[in-house]
């Protein structure tokens, strides 16, 4: 077709770029969010992100709920590592209420949080592989995420949205099966992780696809509010577990892996190394938990009758337990007034809770600092001038979770 056949309306400007809607429901976005890409051939000229498709108004809902009913809301933020969100929320409440948890509870929490971190990084890294065309690794490591989920199941009864733990500790003690499964995991997982690394780290195709793709300097990353593995891949050794230890992280020996270029390859390596560190923390924590003997080994919560539900048997037989049970369930407990910011090292960055209490029974204001909502802004800067296929890899290697972004 020759050019004179195309009749554009009078005064119209010929568009030289192509607009591509990547999302909201696209298999490669791994969640519901949209990128409107402006493409020149296959190169990205500009990207415009739209988020909010699964906004559920958690902050508003939280203003009408007693503390224990907010835990299930936090599950649904970063649902790849919901136990970390749950623990972060409990720790925030404990900070506000001045609850001191026993050491054994802290160590059990560390076990759960590090398992969650491994499952989060595992998914993220294997998804990067999927988006680069290697599906095998993803399918293979799913077995071990499954094993982690089985451990959650032994502790809290659910798998993905866990609602695990309570203010002051855990809802029940870890049973023997949980520990057996943990042992199995500690024994078998290193080999699997090594294999996953073998599959990718020195793989020519993978290196070509990820090295130099979506890089960011440390300075820009900080300015964009990057946290977690994405910031560390850019070379900043900021880890909340070290800088503001919570849940007795100061008792553990571990390293903070850092990258240099902040590209997808470094992000992959940092996550991979963090899994090794998490494994080492898990081993240490498990050893520490085993050191508790006798009555100490039965401790799984702090003594906070105002917030920790009494055992059900006591509710039926003892007056005091019945009263506390009723008051907690009906949300009739007044909190101390105050404002507190507490953050934990989530799967993909600093997960913060800014909690204002006016002395009532529900939070006056609760704000979640959701890491991926903040660093997703950098997407345009990361992908400008890159190819369309690079945008996909950048997206998955940033570990964007729609549930967390939209809260």
């Amino acid at each position, binding site marked *: 077709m020759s050019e004179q056949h195309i009749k554009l309306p009078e005064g119209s400007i010929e568009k030289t770029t192509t607009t591509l809607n990547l999302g909201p429901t696209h298999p490669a976005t791994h969640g519901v969010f949209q990128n409107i890409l402006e493409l020149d051939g296959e190169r990205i000229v500009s990207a415009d992100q739209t*988020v*909010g498709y699964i*906004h559920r*108004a958690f*902050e*508003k*809902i939280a*203003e*009408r709920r007693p503390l224990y009913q907010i835990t299930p809301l936090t599950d649904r933020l970063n649902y790849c590592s919901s136990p970390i969100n749950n623990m972060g929320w409990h720790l925030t409440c404990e*900070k*506000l209420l001045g609850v001191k948890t026993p050491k054994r509870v802290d160590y059990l929490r560390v076990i759960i949080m590090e398992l969650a971190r491994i499952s989060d990084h595992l998914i993220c890294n294997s998804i990067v592989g999927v988006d680069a065309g290697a599906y095998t690794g993803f399918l293979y490591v799913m077995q071990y995420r499954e094993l982690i989920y089985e451990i959650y199941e032994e502790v809290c009864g659910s798998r993905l949205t866990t609602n695990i733990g309570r203010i002051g500790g855990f809802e029940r003690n870890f049973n023997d099966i949980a520990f057996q499964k943990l042992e199995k995991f500690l024994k078998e997982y290193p080999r699997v992780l090594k294999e996953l690394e073998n599959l990718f780290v020195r793989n020519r195709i993978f290196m070509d696809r990820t090295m130099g793709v979506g890089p960011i300097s440390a300075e*820009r990353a*900080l*300015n*964009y*509010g990057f946290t977690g593995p994405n910031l560390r891949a850019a070379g*900043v050794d*900021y880890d909340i577990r070290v*800088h*503001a230890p919570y849940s007795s992280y100061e008792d553990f020996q571990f390293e903070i892996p850092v990258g240099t270029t902040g590209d997808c390859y470094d992000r992959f390596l940092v996550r991979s190394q963090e899994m090794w560190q998490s494994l080492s923390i898990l081993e240490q924590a498990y050893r520490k938990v085993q050191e508790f003997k006798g009555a100490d080994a039965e401790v799984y919560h702090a003594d906070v009758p105002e917030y920790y539900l009494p055992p059900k048997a006591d509710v039926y037989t003892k007056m005091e337990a019945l009263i506390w049970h009723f008051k907690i369930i009906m949300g009739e407990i007044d909190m101390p007034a*105050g*404002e*507190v*910011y507490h*953050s934990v090292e989530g799967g993909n960055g*600093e997960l*913060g809770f*800014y909690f*204002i209490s006016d002395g009532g029974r529900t939070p*006056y*204001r609760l*704000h979640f*600092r959701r890491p991926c*909502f*903040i*660093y*997703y*802004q*950098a997407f345009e800067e990361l992908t400008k001038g890159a190819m369309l296929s690079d945008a996909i890899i950048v997206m998955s290697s940033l570990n964007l979770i729609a549930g967390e972004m*939209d*809260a």
Partner: protein
Amino acid sequence: MELTNDIIKQKLIEKFGDQVTDFTEPYGMLTFSASRDLNLKVLNFLYDNSELKFRFLTDLCAVHYPGQKGKELAVVYHLHNLEDNIRVRFKIFTDITQPDVYTATGLFSAANWMERETYDFYGVNFLGHPNLKRILNVDEMDYFPMRKEYPLEDQTRMDKDDEMFGRGGTIGFGNERTNQGTLTETKKSNAGEDIV
């Protein structure tokens, strides 16, 4: 010398005098506020000062206090000095009828979406923001839902037909269909008979 809350407070008072007020330390985090015209000056000072170096914006959000006349909306910045590992919380209060606040996007790229979110939910108008539009809610929304005058829906309301979620409509308590019609209908007819 290690940076402490007292030093930060000292420096702020040296620079801004009594324009920076309300120093408190809830749970160890230095909290202070300033008038809304000063927000950029204070943020810039905290950023540039060679000892303070608060160069990481952790969080930005708003709070609504309907009871405080003329200071209904608070914009809260959480700043972090990563070198000395210390955080501060900085608040500015603004009037709800004209909530104009200068944007911090020039200083922190991260502030872009955080401010959009704050605008979306509280209607804080960030002056100079490059792209101040709603982010999580639909563009057509004509109110700011996180303000306290919009309470959550009453869970027991019956006027709304929300059949799929077990409320109103034909499913739900009292509305189960029997041979004589639903419970509500039977009651109505019985009431009529009593009168006769």
